């Protein structure tokens, strides 16, 4: 296909005149049947790299995506744009819905799947009968245990690709160190992939870090910062309680700002409303946990503030990548207090099983073995053993690796099980140390003297673009006195009948 027509297709399907950096190169390779690895920074239109080929190719495009919420958002966004032939298969569907969907699967051009659901024999068999022309691994860093999120089910993808008659493979990630990039290729069972690696530094983001004594001080600082700004702002927290507390205080102390919180513990309908208000510029400031923002494509976010840091640099880079998608000046601000180290440590611990958990799990499996039972579904096991999803996934993966489990069957061998206990205990410790080291890396960035930009991106790339905005507080950016300007906020409470008229677009304003 000639390049000119690719641009025409882009215009036709997405309404864009030109490709963003890297998109065209990746799409051309994919369309020519070459296995491709694409590393593109967050917010640079990664998904177009497979969505466009999916529209143009003869067969079906299967996309493996690790997050159900992300999948749902993507399908919704595509449908809103008018692509109807897109769907998602995930574990949230009821048995009946799944059956219905599978029976109509040939109707779709683009099918999102979770890595777990690909292990479901029914789904796998059905997909095998389709003419799959492109197999996409989104968030491909999940396949590497050196990546910032390791998903054991990703390791089974190489096998899946073979059973699907070896379609063209496209692996995509927003943040992957060179080490992880190599790992992706190997773990997917590829020998040769076209690589398109693009630098992830954003030339329109300025950086600032401020150290404070106590978390409460941060709120005061944020108030001062936002008081005279007209700038859509995201503030990241690592706990739901903090997000709610901050939202409450900021709204009462900044009465002309529209502030709300968002986290995974809210009712689904409320979550959707808040998300859309923010997209629709009905909110100025959103206090959120990492649950927010995966599928959000808001262009004009000016501030991404970290009240708490995530547990690693990769996540941090991903989160600030939500700022300034319109290419205009945006600012990343980190507030750090010494007590901040506590939360991430707890978070990392909660993702890994503890020593008693391991013993408890082995006892549980042994009892099942003795009674001749098979392993029940994950949710039940988690409940029974009081393990989180990530903890159980971790144990289960290693049980499979060490042949304690064969599919749902428990295989017993006294010596082997003893060794396994020792092995797993060590493994937990290693994983914990590794994660803590990743966290320390980010913390040491906060403490480092020198240009913020340089030291942040150093592990990922050799050279940096020249920023088109002030670089960072260290390089002389007077961020505390900087302002995006002010706008009179409109936050008038109307009579309900006026509001009703506005909703229905009736009355003078709308006629």
């Amino acid at each position, binding site marked *: 296909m000639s390049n000119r027509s690719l641009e025409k297709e882009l215009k036709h399907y997405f309404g864009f005149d030109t490709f963003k950096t890297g998109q065209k190169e990746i799409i051309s390779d994919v369309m020519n049947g070459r296995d491709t690895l694409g590393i593109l920074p967050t917010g640079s239109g990664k998904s177009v790299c497979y969505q466009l080929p999916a529209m143009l190719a003869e067969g079906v495009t299967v996309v493996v995506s690790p997050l159900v919420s992300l999948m749902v958002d993507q399908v*919704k966004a595509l449908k809103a744009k008018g692509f109807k032939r897109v769907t998602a298969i995930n574990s949230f569907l009821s048995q009946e819905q799944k059956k219905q969907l599978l029976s109509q699967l040939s109707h779709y051009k683009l099918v999102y799947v979770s890595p777990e659901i690909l292990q479901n024999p029914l789904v796998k068999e059905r997909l095998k009968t389709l003419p799959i022309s492109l197999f996409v691994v989104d968030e491909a860093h999940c396949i590497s245990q050196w990546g910032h999120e390791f998903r054991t089910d990703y390791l089974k993808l190489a096998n899946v690709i073979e059973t699907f008659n070896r379609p063209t493979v496209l692996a995509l990630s927003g943040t992957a160190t060179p080490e992880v990039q190599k790992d992706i290729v190997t773990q997917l069972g590829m020998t040769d992939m076209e690589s398109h690696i693009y630098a992830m530094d954003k030339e329109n983001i300025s950086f600032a870090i401020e150290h404070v004594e106590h978390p409460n001080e941060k709120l005061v600082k944020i108030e001062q910062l936002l008081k005279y700004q007209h700038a859509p702002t995201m503030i990241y927290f690592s706990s739901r309680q903090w997000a709610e507390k901050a939202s409450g205080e900021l709204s009462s102390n900044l009465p002309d700002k529209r502030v709300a919180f968002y986290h995974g513990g809210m009712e689904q309908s409320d979550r959707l*409303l808040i998300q859309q208000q923010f997209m629709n510029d009905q909110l100025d400031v959103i206090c959120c946990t990492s649950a927010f923002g995966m599928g959000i494509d808001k262009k004009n976010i000016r501030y991404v503030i970290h009240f708490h840091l995530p547990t690693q640099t990769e996540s941090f880079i991903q989160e600030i990548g939500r700022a300034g998608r319109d290419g205009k000046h945006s600012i990343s601000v980190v507030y750090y207090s010494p007590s901040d180290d506590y939360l991430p440590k707890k978070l990392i611990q909660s993702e890994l099983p503890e020593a008693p958990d391991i013993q408890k799990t082995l006892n549980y499996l042994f009892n099942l073995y003795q009674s001749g039972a098979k392993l029940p579904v994950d949710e039940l096991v988690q409940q029974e053993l009081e393990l989180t999803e990530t903890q159980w996934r971790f144990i289960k993966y290693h049980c499979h690796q060490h042949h304690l489990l064969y599919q749902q069957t428990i295989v017993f061998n006294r010596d082997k099980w003893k060794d396994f206990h020792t092995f797993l205990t060590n493994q937990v410790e290693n994983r914990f140390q590794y994660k803590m080291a990743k966290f320390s890396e980010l913390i040491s960035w906060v403490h480092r003297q020198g240009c913020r930009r340089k030291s942040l991106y150093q592990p990922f790339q050799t050279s940096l673009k020249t920023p088109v905005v002030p670089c960072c507080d260290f390089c002389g950016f007077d961020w505390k006195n900087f302002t995006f300007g002010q706008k009179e906020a409109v936050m008038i409470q109307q009579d*309900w009948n006026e*509001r009703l008229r*506005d909703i229905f677009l*009736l009355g003078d304003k709308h006629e």
Partner: protein
Amino acid sequence: MRVFEYILLRCINSINGERTAAGIYNLLVGKRSSQTLQDAHAYQLTDFFAIYKPLERIELFHAINQLKEEGKIFIKSEDERPELTAYGNEHLGRLSNEWEPLYFNGIRLHEKIGLFEERLYLYIQTITNMKKGNKQFLPITDRNDILRWVKMNYKANKTHLMDHIHSIYHELYSLLSEVNEEEAAVFTYRLTGAGLIGLSKQQLADMFHLPVHNVHLHIQHFLHHLYQAIENKPGTYPSLSIFVEEKETSHLITNSAQKTYLFIKQGMDLETISERRRLKMSTIHDHVVEMALVQPDFPVSLFVSEQEVKEISQVMDELQTNKLKSIHDALRGKFDYFFIRLVQARMQHQKSEAKI
């Protein structure tokens, strides 16, 4: 706490020290246990069954505690069963004057209200966006069955969209005028229109200086009121009546076809219906055609595109026949008989309209 307080006091009063706070919790969240259902009937609290599904246990205990501290109830320590004090009883009388009549009918509506609510919100979001010319917008629900239902009903009404929007507005306005100002305001701000997204419960609580409990109950109460008003007087609220399952549908349609129609309205596709109902696809097709014949506004477009309708009807006009086989042959077998019959059904309505 007001409304929430009133409901709690009512429950405590009716239960009269015979159940613990956990029993009240089970009632309000609508726990599916025979004990809870039995209690609801025995203490005449069926109206409140499942009116507060997202209530958290700890929240209820906070509220109960507060009532205790305010001296409105006492709890015998040995069995943890709350009872009203004399003061509490007096207070309940005052609240009753303030809040009655309440229109909750939980036991009958609890399974319908959630669907009703989501359909209503999405439908208003959809028609207002269409009016504004926004063909692309992000729906405020993720549920596919709701999306399909809304799409179908929108299609059925899009030919007279402006009038339709007006009448939905007027019907809603008149029903909102019947309830107290606070409830009307909370409910109105919950709605999403084109470019105007509704508020979350926490935001509504902040805006109207209410506890979140009351926000939830106001919304629920209005939904119950709305549902029953429409159900009782579909003639007064013809546009809103699409949201309420008819007590009985047109007698012209067979029972079996009605069932199929119900499934279609829920957004199910024909294959699934045929599987579900263990009926042959041809029977389901018969049902669809039957309904298309009886109901002038049946959304034929769910099954055949405008283009296809045009193609088929052209041939029918040319041949001046209703003989399926001739039409089918003239189209060289391009279309299934089902499609041709549907188009026939639709043309029949157009003809009768033309005559009038």
